[in-house]
């Protein structure tokens, strides 16, 4: 029987040498005349173990990692295709604690299946949700999604079901499903992993959204920086179309839905939903004022569902297993699971899907294993470049939309970036302003001019120029930007700045250079 060897084609694994490893494995298989087949799967999300090579032996997946190309020959010598022992052997992958303790609903297949095998997809529970949805009334699908408690995973946390209901109820001959796959937050990769590792789940989620709202056309708007995701998604759409999942009659339901993949040109702000819609329409990627909401007047002025990849990819399991199943995970108003993306200066970086409610400390210390440098954790930025910095004192905060908001923070897209004690928080505050200045679309004044002045004011503080006056000015500026900006880019930039200033005041009173020289 042919042995299956799994080598990820996920971009993170590729960046760590997975392509060379795959070539070496193929070479060995050929040289040794073995009956083995390489499957290019997605990533399991344990980046410190990538490239992670898995071999299926007696229905179990034995892992080896991290594997380098020049380890391959030795691994085969050690009997890799029979799960032979080696220092790189990790045993059965499912039993690794990092994976075992997760609750993988959205990422159930990611890293396990061949991303472009529809057969594999169905064998692992794929299409059950869509099949069920095809027999349901639109309003019932919307009700299931509403009851599941699913909230927008892009960061805003708006209840997905309510958004869908608005589109369902909005009159319009033409409606759209737009998937926001413009994942630009530093330290985030969940969207990319789904698109590369399990693209059909996103297609299925979008198809369900179309049945729920009467939309007939979908777009995945992703970034040019994700070439692998673009390639896999595009191919998956083609396969799904041939299989009748997309097209004039979705799974024979008589309802039409088709979709295409569109690529942005590198603007962070195009991840903001209205700027994204402008970009999709071929216009400058500037933010639109709301109202009108995209649900009423979105793409080409038509009612539009615009959801993040993870929100849409979580829908199939909800429809398949029911709203209650999903809702039973989580805490408070944050229901279901959240794919944490642990990054930065951390020992065990990667994707960790779990129910809401873990404390930040557990995530950083227990799951992440502390810093990679071994130095003490100074701060954790949660929610991307516009998220607040959390000091150790706040590590008891549970991972939950409301709990983070109560501490002047946000969970955003669930990116978690760890910093050790060498980080200078004034530099980080300046970086936040600089990031905003670089990425601002330029439409609203607080963001366009404010971010530039923020950088300048931070520099004045750093140079010891009237530090007290300039700290007050920076705080005032943050107030203007937070409440005055048109979108979250300018509006959330104050989070990292103010949290840095509040929790690490010592970094904002630098010793003036002239004194340092003496």
């Amino acid at each position, binding site marked *: 029987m042919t042995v299956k060897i799994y080598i990820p084609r996920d971009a993170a694994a590729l960046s760590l040498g997975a392509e060379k490893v795959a070539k070496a494995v193929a070479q060995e298989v050929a040289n040794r005349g073995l009956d083995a087949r390489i499957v290019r799967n997605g990533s399991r999300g344990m980046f410190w173990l990538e490239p992670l090579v898995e071999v299926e032996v007696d229905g179990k997946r034995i892992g080896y990692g991290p594997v380098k190309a020049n380890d391959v020959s030795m691994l085969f010598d050690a009997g890799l295709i029979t799960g032979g022992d080696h220092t790189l052997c990790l045993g059965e992958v499912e039993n690794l604690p990092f994976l075992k303790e997760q609750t993988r609903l959205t990422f159930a297949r990611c890293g396990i299946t061949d991303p472009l095998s529809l057969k594999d997809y169905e064998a692992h529970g794929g299409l059950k949700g869509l099949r069920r949805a095809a027999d349901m009334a639109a309003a019932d699908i919307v009700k299931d999604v509403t009851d599941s408690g699913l909230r927008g995973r892009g960061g805003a946390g708006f209840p997905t079901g309510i958004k869908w209901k608005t589109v369902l109820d909005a009159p319009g001959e033409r409606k759209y499903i737009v998937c926001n796959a413009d994942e630009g937050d530093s330290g985030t990769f969940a969207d990319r992993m789904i698109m590369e590792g399990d693209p059909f789940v996103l297609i299925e989620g979008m198809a369900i959204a179309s049945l729920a709202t009467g939309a007939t056309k979908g777009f995945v708007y992703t970034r040019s920086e994700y070439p692998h995701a673009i390639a896999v998604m595009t191919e998956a759409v083609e396969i799904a179309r041939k299989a009748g999942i997309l097209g004039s009659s979705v799974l024979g339901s008589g309802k039409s839905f088709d979709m295409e993949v569109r690529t942005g040109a590198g603007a962070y*702000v195009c991840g903001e939903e209205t700027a994204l819609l402008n970009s999709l329409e071929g216009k400058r990627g500037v933010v639109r*004022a709301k109202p009108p909401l995209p649900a009423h007047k979105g793409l080409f002025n038509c009612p539009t569902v615009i959801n993040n990849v993870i929100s849409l990819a979580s829908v199939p399991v909800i429809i398949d297993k029911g709203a209650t199943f999903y809702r039973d995970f989580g805490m408070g108003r944050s229901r279901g699971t959240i794919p944490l993306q642990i990054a930065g200066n951390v020992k065990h970086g990667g994707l960790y899907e779990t129910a809401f409610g873990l404390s930040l400390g557990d995530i950083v210390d227990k799951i992440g294993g502390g810093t990679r440098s071994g130095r003490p954790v100074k701060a954790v930025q949660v929610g991307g470049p516009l998220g607040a910095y959390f000091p150790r004192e706040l590590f008891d905060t549970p991972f939950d939309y409301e709990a983070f908001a109560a501490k002047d923070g946000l969970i955003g897209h669930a990116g978690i970036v760890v910093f050790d004690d060498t980080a200078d928080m004034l530099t980080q505050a300046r970086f936040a302003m600089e990031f905003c200045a670089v990425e601002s679309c330029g*439409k609203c*004044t607080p963001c366009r*001019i404010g971010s530039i*002045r923020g950088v300048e004011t931070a520099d004045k503080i750093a140079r010891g120029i009237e530090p007290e006056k300039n700290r007050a000015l920076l705080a005032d500026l943050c*107030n203007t930007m937070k409440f005055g900006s048109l979108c979250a880019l300018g509006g959330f930039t104050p989070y990292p700045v103010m949290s840095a200033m509040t929790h690490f005041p010592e970094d904002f009173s630098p010793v003036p250079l002239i004194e340092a020289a003496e």
Partner: protein
Amino acid sequence: MSLVSEIDYGTPASRSETMVTLTIDGQQISVPEGTSVMRASREAGIMVPKLCATDMIDAFGSCRLCLVEIEGRAGTPASCTTPVAPGMVVHTQTGRLKDIRRGVMELYISDHPLDCLTCAANGDCELQDMAGAVGLRDVRYGYDGDNHVAARNNGEINLKWMPKDESNPYFTYDPSKCIVCSRCVNACEEVQGTFALTIEGRGFGSRVSAGMHESFIDSECVSCGACVQACPTATLTEKSVISIGQPEHSVVTTCAYCGVGCSFKAEMRGEELVRMVPWKDGQANRGHSCVKGRFAYGYSTHKDRILNPMIREKISDPWREVTWDEAFAHIATEFKRLQYQYGRDSVGGITSSRCTNEETFLVQKLVRAGFGNNNVDTCARVCHSPTGYGLGQAFGTSAGTQNFDSVEQSDVVIVIGANPTDGHPVFASRLKKRLRQGAKLIVIDPRRIDLVRTPHVEASFHLPLQPGTNVAVLTALAHVIVTEGLFDEKFIRERCDWSEFEDWAAFVAEPQHSPEETEKFTGVPADLVRGAARLYAKGGNGAIYYGLGVTEHSQGSTTVMAIANLAMATGNIGRPGVGVNPLRGQNNVQGSCDMGSFPHELPGYRHISDDATRDIFEKLWGVKLDKEPGLRIPNMLDAAVDGTFKGIYIQGEDILQSDPDTKHVAAGLAAMECVVVHDLFLNETANYAHVFLPGSTFLEKDGTFTNAERRINRVRKVMSPRNGYADWEVTQKMAQAMGLAWNYQHPSEIMDEIAATTPSFALVSYDYLEKMGSVQWPCNEKTPLGSPIMHVDGFVRGKGKFIRTEYVATDERTGPRFPLLLTTGRILSQYNVGAQTRRTENVVWHAEDRLEIHPHDAEQRGIRDGDWIKLASRSGDTTLRALITDRVAPGVVYTTFHHPDTQANVITTDYSDWATNCPEYKVTAVQVSPSNGPSQWQIDYDEQARQSRRIAGKLEAAE
């Protein structure tokens, strides 16, 4: 006197009829659903600070000054983008809002020059106003940070700084003063629809950019002025404001260019015109303008203007300046002599479509009551006389059926033989706005006019017909509508004569009228005709707009009737969004027709032979009127050549340049003994004049113009006539010299006489216009508010009349010697014969007439772009330079007629409309060949023109 104040409500008005009540700062107010909180506040008298909002454009939400707090809602929403909701409680001024607004203003001013005292916008700057409104007292960031203000920062070149763009002749763009509010960009898109402006770069690098970082003059900018009007700072400023200063008073008046009839505020310092700004309450233009009305008024003070009356014995003599009295006495003597010597009918007059209704009324009154004949005609003869005849026959009135607002409710628009983006730009902008909202467009034109494909607008069908085949194409459209059963039977049975319809339907259904048959000579593919017919018949509200490409043909009147047939057959008459709409070429061509300028009609389109009508005037004027129609312009010229017509008074029209077959016109004029030209300039016709009376501009007189939608608009005097007298005074004094007892003290008295004698004007008076702003005739006891839409409950003539429209090809045919068809038109920056616009900076856009020719035809003749070519027809030849373009089809060439040295009308023939004599300008068989330069005729003409413009005692500037 003070500036006309216009409230800026910040966002456009909502059309909803549902009212919503909310509370703003403790005041209850009810506004239509969909109104913004900002507008509702302004209506309640509360001024929320704002910079990026203005009520000409949709809310944009970028400046963040207009934030408010709404009870029960999180955050500080922008009042411009937030619609009102029932029971909403809004606070516009709280501590939190004050902090944010001051914070925003502090940021603005940290990147803005502090040269307020020497700034052109000083006194008219919203940025300055807002800094005051929010109480900005300090800019804590200092002024040494990154900026767009200084050319150098700390000695280093500032790459963000951009120099002032002064390339446009009328306004400047100073990027250093720009606050990037995007009002200009949005005005260019939403109001004008040209999309010439954009924001380039992003973030702090965002800058307003014309085209792709081009200068304004090199960009697609059409200089309509909407951006300048929208700019809240000195970034976009009229050069006249920079050189003169801010105006201190303004007067609302009406543009003297095309038939759209835009209302403007003439903004003045004393008697000096500072600028013309479109008036938002103007019901024709709704606050928009084009380059001509907005900026091209410099001709009024141009050095070429003649300010003293002049006389000469022979046209080969130099002019001699005389006093007004001398001039009037001379004319009176001469005209009396001519009538004594050659008979009562040997003299006549031509009224002007550029003068006021009152002035036109006086000229026809002078002819009828003073000369005692009906030899009066007007330039509408050469443009829209078929409209008057055709629509009169079909509907019973000689005018368009709609107001311009109507287009906002159209679903399908047919544009035929008109080029609105050039000829009627403000209407074109309103049309394009509707098309961008989703209405469909059908263009029937030999040439690919801009509307066929322009940013965010594309015609569903362009029917590129062979010039001269309008009737065949329209009948083919009717054929499809009838044979495919697309007509509106209910409408026809109720509103039209059914048996006439049946007769017409049988006629159009004949196989030779099918698109497949007509394709053979119209050149329009049958499927396009079928598609267009189905769309117009079944696409919702269908409106037809047409221009001189319809009327200036040997079958002009037939085409107008064919248009009326289509509208009636599909039920597209009598409500908003539909109708038949002639786009009038000149400011008062509608009015001049209304005022009895035609030889067979008294004011109000009543035939001269009608005893009752004549009786009204005879009683009032105390004279006996001739009941026989007089001579039309071409007949006057023929009679002159024959020696029976000897004297003419021409007010404000240049027939030598504008009328067909220039050589015939010249011969006619040369045969007369007393030609009196009353004009601003020594125009081409004046080369043949014996008396020149200096005219006054629209800025120098009171009166009214009637635009293409029958709207009677006030023209108001803002400065004294530089020549001494307004045109109505000149005509009156001439009449007095001839012994007529006229004594009008003010044009309002003339209007009172018009109202007293003309039923469709019965309620019109200057007081009433003052109250109403403007009214559309008919305005009488039945319709005291005027008539925006006509034929609402029934046609004026009773039942709508279907008329058979047999296609008869023009006698002007192509052949081996003249294988190409010439058609003519106009261009945006120039107006008509160019007498006004050529004397403004508009010449930077169009310094000469060019001949558009298809690359195929050019290649065959060895003609390259820009080459001098000879354009010859059976009538004559001229030379001009070629412009190679595929806008015209092979076999068709096109030119404009704005420049006298081109003399396109040397080429045109004397064929004319069978019913009205409207000349066939739009079809001339021609040949094009390479040339070395001006033709002998042009050289001779130029010499003669130079000779005939000599004024005794004054050296010619060139000499």
